[in-house]
């Protein structure tokens, strides 16, 4: 009711590209609710009708009952005075033609009262009219409430459909899509867009439509009662529209600036809160406070500028509303006093009061329409973005005749595989590879060599651009995605944990696993040790993104999750980051056990993994430059040798010193390939 339009002015708005198409498509979502919409429309018309009726009835009360009663009394009072003066010849004074009923003839829906009736007759007529008016009020309230509720109901259902459509579609998009889009961006886009749409298709749309209907209906009524008087009374309407559009456009522009400024304020705030330790360590507090003061002041000033426009809008409209009243009353009054007709009809006091009622009903809808229009537009733009997302082509789709993958034995072949994310920029070039069931394939190479891409081809997170990937002789593109992926275990470097219990996080690998199986998997993964130390053991609810657990512990959980799925084919992305020695050993032991007997592809960072691998592939810029076992590759003194030596040298120095120092040391080999400091 109040502050509404202003609140809307502060919102972010955007313009749609192809309004018609988007609106049609959005309208399609309303199809199941067409009956409801028709109901809303009917209610809206009924509601507008009550709005038009109220001033009309008020006017009638004046013209049909109040003025006639008054004039007849004034006349009889005057006549009585004449009578008292004993002048029988005097003419009785007639009720004025203009003040009295004839003008209102035909417009007294609750019955005319003949001139000269007793006051009680007029009061009875008035009572009938007031009862009618009460009925109109009740109908108005009922239709108003019902139309908002029904529209809201339909809108919520549409929104829900839209949400689930988007969500389901998100699952169908390939990882390639997620590589190109930040998940945080996607998240805020989806939530923001759906909430703008929600606002628009419920409350706002009804408000704008019924407001528009009321304005048009009232204008039409006024013009049809008396077109000249109506036209004069409507003079301020275009002014109101111009004022609203002018102020709200400017307010919006200024508020856009404030969003930038408040963004700066928030960024600075966030940065200095999260970096408060550094700030204090480097004694930067005063400098930071000074700099914050500046962006804070810039934000304040931008807001004050924007507020100037919103603060002006409502008073300007209110003042124009008073001007409208003055015009109606002034023009009507002069006409009445001059006894002239205008546009063919006589102006009565009731008509003036009716018109005052009409112009008072203009203010709100006009302001609302102007202010809300931009929000409807930006909801359409939001819908457009949502539809864009829904229209995002699926680069990984099941073939129509896809069959379930039979139980995997673990024989994997890459045939002349090439892969590219962007045309002409291959990430993998002509990869040839064969893994026998049970073998461990270690993939090493610098960052960006294509290691992750290679393993992602197996569960078909991406598709090859050339060649094929076959498991047990079946091209992965010929089987259903679910049957393929449930049979492949994946342990990722950055383990994602759900905000759920430890138990359920492990069970994620196989939803029908019972508690004993989960515990067994955790034991295999060496995770039960730290789980037992958690507050509620297996029932501990992990925080957002598994906060509260160390990197190493999270990886142990991922291993347990893969272990419970018990896949024949395993993909493992070893963590590069440092974990303490004890956890490191536990991870190693867990992995050894997990890998045993399964075909596994490992993006390797640990020397032990590489040493134990049946094949080591050295991947550089999308090509396999060397392959063989650890020993074979060392003997070749090529790329792998260099990679190994750069680490080995350092290790050797340490070992020399420490073996001099103490016999406790056991210099029996190099450390892990990537540093794993304790």
């Amino acid at each position: 009711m109040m502050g509404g339009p202003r609140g809307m002015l502060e919102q972010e708005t955007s313009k749609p590209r192809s309004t018609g198409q988007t609106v049609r498509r959005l309208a399609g979502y309303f199809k199941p609710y067409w009956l409801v919409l028709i109901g809303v429309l009917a209610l809206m018309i009924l509601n507008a009708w009550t709005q038009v009726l109220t001033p009309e009835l008020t006017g009638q009360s004046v013209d049909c009952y109040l003025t006639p009663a008054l004039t007849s009394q004034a006349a009889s009072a005057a006549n009585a005075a004449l009578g008292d003066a004993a002048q029988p010849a005097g003419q009785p004074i007639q009720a004025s033609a203009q003040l009295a009923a004839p003008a209102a003839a035909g417009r007294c829906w609750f019955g005319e009262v003949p001139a000269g009736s007793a006051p009680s007759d007029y009061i009875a007529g008035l009572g009938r009219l007031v009862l009618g008016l009460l009925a109109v009020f009740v109908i108005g309230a009922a239709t108003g409430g019902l139309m908002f509720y029904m529209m809201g109901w339909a809108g919520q259902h549409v929104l829900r459909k839209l949400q689930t459509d988007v969500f389901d579609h998100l699952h169908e998009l390939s990882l390639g899509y997620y590589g190109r889009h930040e998940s945080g961006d996607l998240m805020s886009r989806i939530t923001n867009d759906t909430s703008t749409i929600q606002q628009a298709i419920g409350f706002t749309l009804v408000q704008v439509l019924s407001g528009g209907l009321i304005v048009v209906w009232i204008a039409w009524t006024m013009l049809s009662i008396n077109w000249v008087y109506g036209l004069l009374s409507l003079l301020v309407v275009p002014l109101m529209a111009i004022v609203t559009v002018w102020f709200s456009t400017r307010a919006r522009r200024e508020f856009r600036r404030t969003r930038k400024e408040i963004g700066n304020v928030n960024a600075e705030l966030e940065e200095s809160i999260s970096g408060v330790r550094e700030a204090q360590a480097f004694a930067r507090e005063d400098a930071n406070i000074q700099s914050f003061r500046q962006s804070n002041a810039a934000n304040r000033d931008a807001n004050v500028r924007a507020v100037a426009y919103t603060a002006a809008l409502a008073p300007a409209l209110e003042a124009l509303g008073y001007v409208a009243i003055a015009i109606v009353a002034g023009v009507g009054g002069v006409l009445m006093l001059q006894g002239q007709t205008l546009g063919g009809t006589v102006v009565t006091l009731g008509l003036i009061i009716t018109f005052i009622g009409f112009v008072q009903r203009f203010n709100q809808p006009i302001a609302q329409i102007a202010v809300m229009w931009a929000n409807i537009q930006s909801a359409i733009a939001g819908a457009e973005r949502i539809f864009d997302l829904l229209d995002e082509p699926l680069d990984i789709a099941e073939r129509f005749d896809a069959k379930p993958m039979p139980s995997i034995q673990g024989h994997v072949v890459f045939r002349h595989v090439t892969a590219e994310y962007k045309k002409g920029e291959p990430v993998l070039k002509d990869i040839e590879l064969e893994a026998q069931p049970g073998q461990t394939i270690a993939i090493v190479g610098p960052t960006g060599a294509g290691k992750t891409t290679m393993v992602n081809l197996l569960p078909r997170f991406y598709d090859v651009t050339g060649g094929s990937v076959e498991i047990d002789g079946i091209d992965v593109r010929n089987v259903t995605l679910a049957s393929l992926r449930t049979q492949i275990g994946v342990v990722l470097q950055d383990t994602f944990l759900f905000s759920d219990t430890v138990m359920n996080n492990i069970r994620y690998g196989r939803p029908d696993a019972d508690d004993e199986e989960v515990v067994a998997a955790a034991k295999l993964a060496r995770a039960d040790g730290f789980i037992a130390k958690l507050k509620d053991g297996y029932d501990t609810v992990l925080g957002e993104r598994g906060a509260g657990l160390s990197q190493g512990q999270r990886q142990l959980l991922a291993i347990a999750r893969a272990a419970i799925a018990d896949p024949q084919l395993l993909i493992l992305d070893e963590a590069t980051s440092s974990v303490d020695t004890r956890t490191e050993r536990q991870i190693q032991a867990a992995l050894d056990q997990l890998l045993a007997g399964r075909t596994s592809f490992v993006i390797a960072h640990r020397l032990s993994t590489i040493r134990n691998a049946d094949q080591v592939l050295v991947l550089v810029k999308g090509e396999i430059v060397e392959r063989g076992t650890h020993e074979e590759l060392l003997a070749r003194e090529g790329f792998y040798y260099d990679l190994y030596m750069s680490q080995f040298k350092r290790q050797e120095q340490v070992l020399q010193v420490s073996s001099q120092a103490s016999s406790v040391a056991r210099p029996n080999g190099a450390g892990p390939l990537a540093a794993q400091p304790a």
Partner: protein
Amino acid sequence: MTQNVRGGAPAGKRERPSFKTLGRAVGYLGHYRNITILAYAALLLSTSAQLMVPQMVQNILDAITHGLVAQQLAGAPADAQVAAAAKVGMSPEQFQQTLANPYTALYWALGLILMFAVIRGLFAFAQSYMSEKAGQGVAFDFRNELFAKIQRLSFSYHDRNRTGQLMVRATDDVEKVRLFIGQGLLMAVQALVLLTGALIMLLLTNVQLTLVVLPILPLAVVMFMGFGMITQPLFIKVQVKLSALNTVLQENLAGIKVIKAFATEPREQKRFDNSAEVLMRQQIQVQLIFSFLFPVIFLIANLGQAAVLYFGGQQIINSTLTIGEWQKFSLYLLLVFFPLGQLGFIITQMSQAAASANRVYEILDAPNEVTDKPGATPLPEIKGAVQFENVSFRYFGSSEPVLNGVSFAAHPGQTLAILGATGSGKSSVINLIPRFYDVTGGKVLVDGHDVRDVTLDSLRRQIGIVLQETNLFTGSIRDNIAFGRPDASDEEVVAAAKSAAAHDFIESFPDGYETPVGERGATLSGGQKQRIAIARALLLNPRILILDDSTSSVDVQTEVVIQQALDRLMAGRTSFVIAQRISTVLSADNIIVLDKGRVAAQGTHLELMESSEIYAEIYRSQLVEDPVAAAEEDAQAEPVR
């Protein structure tokens, strides 16, 4: 007003906010006294003008009716004229005037209504603009104070409070307080003035009619109060359900790989579907109340109008009321209902603002544990001697000490390695030197000065720190290196970057040292950030250096480079290192082995290898880096089934 507040308080059901802090917040308007006074003066004027408009409408209508009656009676004898005129409420003088010129009164009334329209427009603008301006000023002050306070609050405060929480207070809570001070308070005052004024005008116009509509007012008040009580918890429910839905969405976006890998899409879709369904039902419930709220409120207001029409009409017919007065009355009635509605909203807003003000003051009133003591003197240029004398320390609110009777000394230029298991108190030791926390017992001395006797600024400026987790700040790379000494010359910055092995990669960027560093240094890799942090510490050329020599998430080559840079950084300075590397330990002048907050052993590597079991154990577990051997050991220790 206080009465109203008490009545409306249940609206803020979650916590019964104390309005004392809100009062304190409103006191900030004192910083903007002139603007505030102007705003409220404008309010009085604009509200008065608004109150005059219905009177003017009456004047117009009366002018018309009088004029007409006068015209009608023009031909009648004088006695009859007077009698008839009296019947419509005109004195004989008025009648004569009206008869002479029926338009004068009408034009006057029209002129006045236009004048009041202009006055109302101008001052209504002035009141809300001034008030908003003052509100923005108050928000500005609050944010500055919060920022300064947060910047200076000690580490132990930040240990207990999350960034997100503090953020919300400095943004959302300040906004809510601002909204109340800038708009709500003004609206409340305006509503009260308008309500009182309109009620007085109603009574002055017609007591009898006022008494007829008066019973409707409490009904409206009850409606508004009830609305606040019903909707507040419903909104909270919607929020809870919305965030549940968003959690599912967010987890699915962030964990999409896991979901795809385990092919659990159908399960997730069902989960989302359920959440969406629950949210929709809740939304529809809110919709129900909201849809009918306004219609019902308007209905009540309209009941008042209908009553006025019927009972006022009777009076008109009985000639105790004029049509003009009746119109005026019904317009004033609107001015009674309108502020009532406003007050209902403001009360809700007010209890929210009070809760927010409480949260804001929680920060502003938080005691700061580490501050300059009165009469603290600046620390003279540091030579580099550091001594811990029987230091004990425990974290705020914790009963168990982290450090217990820790004593050691470092001579200028020495390197001290600190070793120990997780939780043995390593970080606490290094955090006490720049006085990020205060000791609970004993003393920390730098060059013989107790760190609590010198100013924080002079102490910290002379200590360089490289932490494991590197925070960079928005700005150029140059700004980040010069973080501790913004006045450093370009040559100095480049020299520091070179020593930190950062120069080459910085130069490889198109913008070199002017390359902007994104929020939290997002555009740089972990290794690059770490090297910038090293350069940042080097530029201070500190006599005392504190560092955590673990490197995380970097590839092998980068790690070697970083460790070389760290070695250069330590040369010739008193250095405290939380040691992760064997080479550090080997080259340290003194090694402190911590065990459960006590110094278990100290000495050089060779000494300790001879004398300390714990050290030998730690040393061995670091040295035994071949995971195969480690796994074998593990297997022996606890056989796997």
